[in-house]
């Protein structure tokens, strides 16, 4: 028996052969697709918003101004508390006024650098930790769909920590007179940017 189609005909054996050739078999391989994308997405996310970048760098600069042990306590505290905020965001726990909190963090941290504010160590850690929750929550709720959770998290934490390290590196200029002035000017810049972000959050 043949299936006629004008001058051409398809033999059942040909049809079976084609079916066998083109039939997709089950593939259970774990191809690890999306893992690199997850890491790169995580690495990129903290540096994708200027409000986050300025706040992270300010934490490092403020820590450098305060000196030891704040210079290492703040970068140790911030990622953990920020990750806690990220966890809340991932779980869908609502946090009101996230954008306002992020903008306020820019203002307060900028003013702290500008005025070389020296609160007690625990107080500085609480301030930084409080704002870290807002930053983490924003990151947690803005995760890309389908990204590898673990690699995204690794990239995210690495990028945040690197921004702190950059802030501490900039803060090294605090040991020179001109550096102290430059650092305070940078604080003023961050506070101004924070005010702009606050205005935009309410707009």
């Amino acid at each position: 028996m043949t299936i006629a189609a004008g001058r051409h005909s398809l033999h059942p054996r040909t049809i079976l052969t084609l079916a066998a050739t083109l039939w997709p078999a089950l593939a259970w391989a774990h191809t690890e697709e999306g893992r690199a994308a997850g890491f790169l997405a995580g690495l990129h996310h903290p540096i994708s918003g200027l409000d986050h970048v300025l706040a992270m760098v300010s934490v490092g600069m403020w820590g450098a101004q305060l000196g030891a042990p704040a210079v290492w306590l703040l970068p140790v505290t911030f990622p953990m508390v920020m990750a806690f905020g990220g966890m809340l965001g991932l779980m869908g726990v609502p946090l009101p006024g996230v954008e306002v909190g992020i903008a306020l963090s820019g203002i307060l941290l900028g003013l702290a650098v500008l005025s070389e504010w020296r609160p007690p160590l625990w107080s500085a850690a609480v301030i930084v930790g409080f704002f870290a929750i807002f930053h983490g929550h924003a990151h947690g709720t803005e995760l890309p769909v389908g990204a590898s959770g673990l690699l995204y998290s690794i990239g995210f934490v690495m990028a945040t920590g690197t921004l702190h390290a950059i802030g501490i590196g900039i803060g090294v200029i605090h040991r020179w007179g001109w550096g102290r002035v430059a650092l305070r000017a940078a604080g003023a810049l961050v506070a101004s940017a924070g005010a702009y972000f606050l205005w935009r959050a309410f707009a």
Partner: protein
Amino acid sequence: MKALLSRIVLCVTVVLLLPATSHAHLMTTGLGPFYDGVSHFALTPEDLLPALALALLAGQRGSRAGRLALFALPMAWLLGGLVGLAFPAISDAPALTAVSFLALGGLVAAEARLRPEWVTGLAVAFGLVHGYLNGSAMSQAKLGALGLVGIVSTLFVTFALAAAMVVAIRVPWGRIAVRVAGSWIAAVGLLLLGWSLRGA
């Protein structure tokens, strides 16, 4: 003759194009199960990072803690892996992995003053759990005990290098860098916990 030749060509084409079922799970290097195990450990942050955190913790607590954990961890991992190979049930437990990250990274960040025996106990518990998960996964991938030996060998070398490096640190900023690394691992654990609770 011509018909026979065309049939042979057709059959060869079918065989070449037929997609086969693939059951691969772990990294395959093409160099055999031992190197598959080596590459699996080196390329799997779920195992590598908490093992590194444990090595940092052992190094922080001195050379005795480092030496005890150096042998306790691979032995426990091997034992857990053999159990996993024999009785595979769970090969992936994101919440448990997250807790490993969080607990070990948190202890490093806090520079917890644990006695060497406690560090060894942690190494045994961690090794049994992660070894079992590895063994279950390897059983499904049919890599067998040789793959497990590859994992444990890499674990031993990695742990020895990391712990020894921390024990040898003399400069204050070096110890701070270790604590920062611990806080990063703990932070990853918190995020991973959020991912697993979210069900992603």
